[in-house]
């Protein structure tokens, strides 16, 4: 096992950053093929300075903001997944473990049920409801597990999972009470989506997500100590309770913002941190930024796949599916699981040969 040196650290992160830049540059050219706007068309329109042209509108009002949102959501979910897995010492922990996704979904479903639409200070009201629903769940989980002075992670997990199940039950109740159009809306929402209207969705999240990323990444060294054990970390000068609360609060805020805008996109927060750990090791200093950047790349590529694959599936089924897209959660699972299994198999094999 190699140690984390500055050279390795910066090489890996520069590589990820470079790939993200490439993704962003390619993004105006990749999307639903029926639009007939290619990579060159879009950039030509951009440099011609022609914001009214179809190529510009498709490339830079539809596709690039969408990729920006995918990157942002992937970064958040990858990073928060890595933080939660470290904090709970549990490889099955995800950003949604404390019930954030279910709480957010319940909030959004209530908004759909009540027929609330429109903007609130430039933010879709449905997203505001989802954000508040997610925060309510976290607040409940916190209040009921803070009987003692220090948080016990197993009780947090238990409370989070229970609250998640409760919200799911309430969501079932709402779907059963709603009419057909509302039900379709609700199911669509719960599938998760990166649909954007211009830059609105991606920009509403920045004020929440960006500060959270910075705070979380700054706690990497303390999280490394935490991995040694709570008492050992405390003896080294880590304020353990403060570390736990800070990480949970900021990871929850960022995740809630993403859930509010994109819905519950599964799998990124579970698998990306594990893939990152298999690639670069479990040192939080590289695991946190690495999971973040790989999460962004992963979700952006999955989003492209959801556009490109729908045409092929439509041809197979002899149906015209143009204009629709695969649910992003399906793509993250289909793309993520094979990568994960291959890496897991390689690690098992290398461990056997080492022994």
């Amino acid at each position, binding site marked *: *096992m190699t140690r984390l040196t500055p050279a390795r*650290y910066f090489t890996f992160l520069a590589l990820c950053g470079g790939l993200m830049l490439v993704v962003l540059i390619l993004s105006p050219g990749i999307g639903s093929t029926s639009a007939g706007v290619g990579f060159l068309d879009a950039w030509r329109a951009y440099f011609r300075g022609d914001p009214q042209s179809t190529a510009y509108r498709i490339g830079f009002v539809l596709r690039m903001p969408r990729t920006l949102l995918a990157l942002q959501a992937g970064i958040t979910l990858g990073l928060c997944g890595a933080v939660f897995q470290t904090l709970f*010492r549990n490889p099955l922990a995800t950003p949604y473990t404390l019930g954030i996704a279910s709480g957010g979904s319940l909030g959004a479903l209530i908004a759909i049920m009540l027929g609330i639409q429109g903007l609130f200070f430039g933010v879709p009201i449905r997203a505001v409801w989802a954000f508040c629903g997610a925060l309510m769940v976290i607040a409940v989980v916190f209040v009921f597990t803070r009987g003692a002075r220090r948080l016990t992670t197993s009780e947090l997990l238990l409370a989070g999972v229970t609250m998640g199940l409760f919200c799911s039950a309430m969501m079932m109740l709402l779907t059963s009470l709603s009419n057909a159009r509302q039900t379709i809306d609700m199911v669509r929402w719960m599938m998760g989506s990166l649909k954007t209207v211009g830059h609105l969705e991606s920009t509403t999240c920045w004020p929440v997500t960006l500060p959270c990323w910075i705070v979380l990444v700054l706690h990497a*060294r303390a999280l490394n100590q935490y*991995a040694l054990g709570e*008492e050992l970390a*405390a*003896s*080294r*000068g880590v304020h353990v309770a403060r570390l736990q609360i800070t990480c949970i609060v900021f990871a929850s805020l960022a995740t809630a913002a993403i859930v509010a805008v994109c819905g519950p996109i599964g799998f990124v927060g579970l698998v990306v941190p594990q893939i990152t750990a298999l690639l670069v090791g479990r040192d939080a200093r590289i695991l946190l930024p690495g999971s973040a950047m790989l999460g962004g790349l992963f979700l952006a590529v999955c989003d492209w796949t959801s556009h490109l694959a729908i045409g092929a599936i439509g041809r197979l089924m002899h149906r015209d599916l143009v204009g629709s897209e695969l649910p992003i959660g399906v793509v993250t699972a289909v793309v993520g699981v094979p990568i994960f299994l291959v890496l897991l198999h390689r690690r098992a094999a290398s461990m056997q040969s080492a022994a």
Partner: protein
Amino acid sequence: MIDTGTPMLVARNVAFGFPQRPAFLKPLSLSARRGECWGIIGPNGAGKSTLLRLLGGLLVPDSGTILLGGRPLATVAMRERAKCIAFLPQQLAGDLHLPTAEVVLMGRYPYRRFGLFEDAADRDIARRVMAATGTQHLADRPVSTLSGGEARRVHIAAALAQEPTVLLLDEPTASLDLYHQLSILEIISERAKEDGLLVVVVTHDVNLAARFSTHVLILDEGRCVAAGPPLEAMTTELLESVYDVRLATAKADHDAGRWVIPISPRPGDTKGYRA
């Protein structure tokens, strides 16, 4: 020259209780200097680990004060405390997928507020403590693949990398083989002699405590029943009553003078174990 005159760690009438067990540790005083090696012994549940955590500042006493180099421990900031006191719990993380060298370097945590990477001075210190603990050859192995004895030595190396003046160890030899029990205590007492480290060890092994300690402190049901040089404090009668067993002794050729050999539980039920 290391100043061994003034006491490094002083406890004055320190008492502590848990919510479920108020007045668990009865008022206790001790005064320990640099270069000394203290062994805390006593039966299960006597309060040994609690006392160690109080001395390390991980628990705050209900009454009484603890002084670290003359300063009340409660007023020392966590990071400053970590530069003076290293603590090693009995339970260590079992699934630590980090290379050994990295875990040792992590002992430098309190010295670096910002910045992600340790510098050359830190790496020198890590190299030195790994040599002192005989763990250099493990540098690139993940800690999760080490044996119990090797992992314990690595964690002791990390504690030494903290460059403490006080080293607190909770049962460092529990569940280790004979070689590792002896080698770990030898490493520690060598540091005490050469670097003037004050070492406090909680242990169940009365023979090892007698052999490697300069002072022992015997706890029984939260009360300090004896403290002082091992030969004087650890009388056979006292050990028999504290541990509720019958003992035999044999003459030994080291300084502690004798071996204690447990024979059988004492008849009767003086401690309520069999209630």
